[in-house]
C-alpha cells in the first residue's frame, strides 16, 4: 500500500471481503470503531495486499455495519442511549430489517468488536423482550422451543 516500503502510510480506504466474496471499500476513519479490523490492519500494514477477509459476515450485514459506523461518526455529538436507539431503528427501517437482521448485526458486531452496535443491538432486543408479556410470547417471537423439563428442581 505504501510507495516507501519502510514507511507504513495509512490508506484512505481498506478492502473488506465478506463470505460471498464481495469486497467492500470502507473508509479507514471508520476502522477505529471496528476493533478487530483495526488490529488486523495494524498487523498487516507492512505487507498487506489490501484485502482483509471477514468470512463470517454476509455482504448485506457488512453494508449495515458500515452504515452504522458512518452514522456514529457523523453524529458524534449524539451519544445518549435514546439517540442511538433512534438511529438504529431508522437504519433498520431503511433496510427493512427484522429480528433476524438484528441478531446477524449483533453477531457481526461481536466479531468485529463494534461496541456501539453491540450496545444498541442488545438494547433493541431487550426492549422487544420486555414488551412481551409472557415466556410463550417471547418463544413465539424468537422461535424458541421450551426444553425445560416440567418437573425440574434445582439441587442445592
Amino acid at each position, binding site marked *: 500500500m505504501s510507495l516507501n516500503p519502510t514507511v507504513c502510510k495509512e490508506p484512505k480506504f481498506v478492502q473488506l471481503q465478506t463470505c460471498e466474496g464481495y469486497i467492500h471499500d470502507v473508509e479507514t476513519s471508520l476502522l477505529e470503531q471496528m476493533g478487530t479490523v483495526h488490529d488486523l490492519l495494524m498487523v498487516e500494514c507492512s505487507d498487506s495486499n489490501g484485502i482483509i477477509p471477514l468470512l463470517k459476515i454476509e455482504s448485506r450485514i457488512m453494508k449495515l455495519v458500515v452504515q452504522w459506523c458512518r452514522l456514529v461518526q457523523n453524529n458524534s455529538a449524539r451519544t445518549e442511549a435514546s439517540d442511538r436507539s433512534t438511529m438504529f431503528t431508522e437504519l433498520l427501517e431503511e433496510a427493512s430489517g427484522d*429480528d*433476524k437482521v438484528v*441478531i*446477524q448485526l*449483533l*453477531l457481526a458486531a*461481536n466479531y468485529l468488536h463494534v461496541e456501539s452496535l*453491540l*450496545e444498541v443491538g*442488545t*438494547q433493541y*432486543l*431487550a*426492549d422487544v*423482550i*420486555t414488551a*412481551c*408479556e*409472557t*415466556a410463550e*410470547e*417471547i*418463544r413465539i417471537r*424468537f*422461535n*424458541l*422451543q*421450551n*426444553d*425445560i423439563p416440567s418437573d425440574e*428442581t*434445582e*439441587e*442445592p
Partner: protein
Amino acid sequence: MAEESVPEILQLNDDCLEEIFDRLQDLHSEVAFSQTCQRMQHICLSKWRISRAYEQLDLDKWREMLPNYEDLVYFLAQMRPYLKEMCASSCLCALLKDLDEMQITVLPRVTSFYYDPEDVDCYPSNRSIRKLSELLPGLQKLRLTTPIDGRFLSHFEHLQELHLYEDQHKAYELQQEYLDEICQKLHDLKVLDIRTYDVISKLQLGNCLQSLRNLTVLKLNLATLKPVLPAVLELPSLRQLVVLLDNEWHIPPLVSPDSYDHKIREVGEFYDIMERKAKDIVGFAVDGYYMPLEPGWDAELPIWAHRKLKRLAICSWSHAADYLERYTCMENLRLLCLRNWNELSDDILLRFVELCPHLEHLDVSYCRELTPNFLPRALEILKQREPRKPMPGYRHTAPLLLYYVLSGFEDFIDKTNLKSSPDYRGYIVFTADFPFGSERGLSFVDRGYQFEFDCP
C-alpha cells in the same frame, strides 16, 4: 445447514445474551426470559445468583418486585438453593405459612436470619420457632427482637450467634430453662446477647458457663453478670464483654435507702474486671452518664502497667478533661471515642493526635467546645509525621477517620466543604456517622460498659 435449525437468537454467545439480560427493564421480564428455554434459564440464573439485590430473601420486598404470584413462586424456586440470608418484618407465622404454600420447606444455605417485625404485637409462637429451625437448618446467625420464651431455639444446631436484644426496646426475657438448654446444646455458640432494657434481668448463667467454652462475645445485664463474674472472666475464648446496667436495682432490705450508696455498688464489677483482666484489656468503653465515675477514678488502674489499649471510649463526661491526658501514653491506640464531653478542648485532643501515631478513628461527636482551629493543627501534625502522602506509589498509612456529628466544628466542615479539600486528602476523612460496632447516639456503649480482651 445445521445452524439454520437453531433459532437465530441462540446463535448469540453468552456474552451477548448477558448484555441483553442486563438491559431488561424489570424482574418480571427477566423471569419471563428465563422461562423460555434452558439456555436462557441458565443465563438468568447465573446473573441472579451473583446479584447483591437477591442475596437476602425479604419476602415482602420480593412480593413488590414480583406482584404476579406465579412469577414469585418460580423465582423463589430458582433461588432457593442459593439464598444466604433472610429477613422479615411482617408476622413470622404468616410468612412461614406463605412459604409452605409455595412449597419452600427448606432454605439449605441460609446462614443468617433477622426478624424485626413492624407490628409490635406480632409475637412468634413456639411452633413457628420450631418450623423456622426446620426451614433454616444451617442457620448460624439469628436475631430475634420479639418476646419469646426460648423454646426450640436450641433446635438451630449450628447456631453461632444469638442476638435477642434491640436497642432500648426490650422488656421481656427467655425462660431460664430454655437459656440453659441453648447454652448446653449449641456447641458452636460464639456470640450471645441476652440483654433486657426495661426491667432487672432475672436470667442466670450459673448452669451455662461450663458449656460456653467457644463464646467470644457476651452481652448481658449487670444483674446476670454479678453472681458469675469470676467464671465469665475465665471463659477461654472471650474477646468482648458488654454490660447493660439494669434499669432498677435491688436495695437489700436491711439497708437504709437514705444512706445506701447505689453508685458504689454499680461500679464494683467494672473495677473488678479492670483488676482481674488488666493484662488482657485492649479496649474499654463506658457511658459516663450512667456510670457514676468521679475525676481520678482511673488513676490507680492496673492497665497503666500494660499499655495495651487499642480502643478507648469514655462518653458523656461532665467533669474537666485535663486528666484525659494520662491516656496519651497508650501509643497503640487505634480508636478514641469521646462523645458528648462538656469540657473537651482542642489542646487535649491534639495531644492524642500527636502522641498516638496509630490512631485511625477519632469520634468527637457532640463535643461542642471543640473549635475549627483544631482541624488545621491536627493536619499539620499528621503532615509532619508523613509529609509525602498522598503521592502516588508511596506506601502510606490509612487516613484518620474523624466523626464529627454536632461537634464544635461540624458547621465549619460543612460550610467549607472540607470533605472534598485536597489539603486533607489522604490525612483526614470526615464522616457524619459513628464508628462501626458502636451504638448510635451520645455514647459508644449505651447505659453501661464494654471490654475487649486480647485472647490468645
